[in-house]
């Protein structure tokens, strides 16, 4: 995975600079609490939420168990509908495939719709090096790109910027990339959105190549699904002559019908809406409607490593809703950048170390960036038991370096940071004791048991974190108390 932020310090150091930034903390707290409360209301509207969640989880587990067959079926369906399927083992290969496809069109710029997968592989930087400019078209991604910055939240990547900063970024940089910001631009969100609309429209209208990810791929029909709000996705998927979609292999679902579950759970979990403003579905190419050429790049890049881990593989169920970020006491105080990858928050803490291993200090420290409170599990629409995976990954990290090893030290520091922040810990323990009764030692239902029967789920002891800390506390505790 080449999406590592170069020079990224391990979790506790990164967090130290983040928490000093009062404004970032305020923005984050406001944002996460707002979305969290709205999500709870949107979920409460559906009397069958628990059943939808269980179905979503089981669809994903079943898909992963026969992932090879579903991908082959998908390939066949996409090909039969006029698309071309490519397979990329890692980020280098995916980047090369996309760059070659763009070059073959003779174009030197592409429009992009927000995609975690293309961020994960560092596609924009790679294209840049090949002389191809990738324009991000989500408002937040545009803010991040123009501000030469990194995203801090899956769903709201510019959550760390306030309106005044955004106005300054637009005023100072838009002209360099195309249509400048209107004279006298104010910091009202409506005016800022209008400036983005005008700036990007000229790019959409002339774009010949679009690049996207996808939220779902239906094996049965070969259909890809993109869920969005602004309409920039529709622009990128519809107006260019060539469309290239880079999608992780775990995004496949077997049947058309499976969408009835995720189209109910994803919008409510992510933006707390009954339905997001726009969802696009396309199958290969269509005469006289949309791109004439469609390429699907199926991406592994560490996913099959995660799949081989019987505890960790559940992370591949993730539908990237970001609900777990918004309830996480650590994320709220640390901010997204501290996680050192494109996947922040609780999901990042379990996904990143699995996708790229725990050989670096930041990745080894990620499983410790948690108080194991379980709030993330409660809200996850596909019931990923994030605390369970964190405990499992801690065991792996602890086993690989030995006492006093630099990785262990990084882990200790992350743990120390959590322990030194009473707010984090108190929130964690409060939730843990509240939800402990909801954490069964074995998952209910015949299906789940077949995945989990041979092992017990770790229990949530009264003071899981402090117990662990007592046993593992280094002789010389980290002195820095950020």
């Amino acid at each position, binding site marked *: 995975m080449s999406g590592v932020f170069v020079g990224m310090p391990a979790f506790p150091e990164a967090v130290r600079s983040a928490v000093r930034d009062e404004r970032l903390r305020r923005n984050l707290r406001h944002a996460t609490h707002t979305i969290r409360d709205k999500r709870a209301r949107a979920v409460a509207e559906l009397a069958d939420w628990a*059943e939808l969640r269980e179905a979503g989880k089981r669809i994903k587990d079943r898909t992963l168990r026969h992932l*090879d067959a579903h991908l082959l079926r998908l390939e066949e369906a996409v090909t039969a509908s006029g698309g071309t399927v490519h397979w990329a083992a890692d980020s280098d290969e995916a980047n090369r495939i996309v760059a070659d496809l763009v070059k073959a069109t003779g174009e030197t710029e592409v429009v992009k719709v927000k995609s975690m997968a293309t961020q994960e592989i560092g596609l924009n930087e790679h294209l840049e090096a090949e002389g191809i400019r990738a324009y991000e078209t989500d*408002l937040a991604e545009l803010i991040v790109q123009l501000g030469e910055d990194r995203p801090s939240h899956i769903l709201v990547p*510019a959550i760390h910027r306030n309106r005044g900063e955004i106005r300054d970024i637009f005023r100072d940089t838009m002209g360099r990339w195309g249509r400048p910001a209107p004279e006298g631009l104010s910091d009202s969100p409506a005016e800022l959105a209008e400036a983005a609309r005008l700036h990007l429209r000229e790019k959409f209208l002339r774009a010949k190549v679009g690049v996207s990810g996808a939220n779902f791929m239906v094996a049965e029909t070969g259909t890809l699904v993109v869920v969005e709000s602004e309409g920039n996705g529709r622009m990128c998927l*519809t107006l260019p002559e060539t469309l290239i979609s880079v999608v992780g292999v775990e995004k496949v679902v077997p049947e058309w019908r499976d969408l009835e579950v995720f189209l109910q759970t994803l919008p409510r979990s992510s*933006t707390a809406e009954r339905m997001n403003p726009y969802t696009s579905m396309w199958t290969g190419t269509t005469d006289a409607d*949309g791109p004439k050429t469609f390429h699907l790049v199926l991406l592994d890049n560490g996913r099959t490593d995660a799949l081989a881990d019987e505890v960790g593989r559940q992370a591949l169920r993730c539908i990237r809703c970001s609900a777990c970020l918004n309830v996480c006491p650590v994320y709220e105080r640390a901010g997204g950048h501290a996680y050192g990858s494109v996947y922040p928050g609780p999901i990042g803490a379990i996904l990143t170390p699995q996708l790229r291993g725990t050989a670096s200090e930041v990745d080894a420290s990620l499983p410790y960036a948690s108080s194991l409170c379980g709030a993330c599990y409660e809200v996850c629409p596909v019931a990923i038991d994030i605390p369970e995976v964190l405990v499992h990954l801690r065991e792996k990290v602890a086993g690989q370096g030995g006492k006093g090893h630099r990785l262990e030290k990084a882990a200790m520091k992350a743990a120390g940071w959590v322990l030194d922040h009473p707010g984090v810990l108190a929130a964690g323990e409060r939730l843990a004791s509240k939800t402990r009764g909801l954490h069964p030692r074995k998952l209910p239902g015949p299906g789940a048991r077949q995945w989990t*029967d041979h092992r017990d789920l770790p229990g949530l002891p009264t003071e899981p974190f402090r117990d662990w800390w007592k046993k593992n506390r280094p002789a010389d505790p980290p002195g820095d108390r950020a």
Partner: protein
Amino acid sequence: MSQNSRERILARIRSAVADAPETPDVPRTYLARHTPDDPDAVLDLLHENLADYRAHVHRTDEAGLPALIARRLEERGARRVVVPDGLPAEWLAGTAAEPVPDDRLTPAALDAVDAVVTGCALAVAETGTLVLDGGPGQGRRALSLVPDLHVCVVREEQVVASVPEALPRLDPRRPLTWISGPSATSDIELDRVEGVHGPRTLEVVLVRGARFAAG
């Protein structure tokens, strides 16, 4: 090279799950719909949910449709309106706006049009969603995307209650666009702003069906 990666990825998957236990059928114990089977209630719910996401909703019957469409276009100041293939001619019979047929208009040409009038494939009441599938009277996807005003006509019999009821009625081989209110963003300090790239105004016209025709 890609051929090799294909085999390599498939082989890695097979070895990764080789020892994993089989998975049983998925329990579909969730509800097929959350709304009582009452057409009036379902139509009201659609109306309410569309309005909740800032679409402008109007009701009429078949006879009143041309005048209503004409009024919507006029009030929004639309002078040129793009006409998808297969749009019933009478829908635009009352308007003074210039009809622009879709002769494979370029994106730039579409950008110079003020509005589009379309039908839809179906509408989902519980989520306040319109689904377009490029069928007659709907046009290719760009038509309902580039112009700043979208007037969408929904007949009562096209309304279903829920997402599970919608999917079996849609053809996945057609390009589908699910629309729930106008384009929006909350990317700036989480303030919702209507209208970024898609049409900033969505006008929905609900047309009462045959059960009311006699009255």
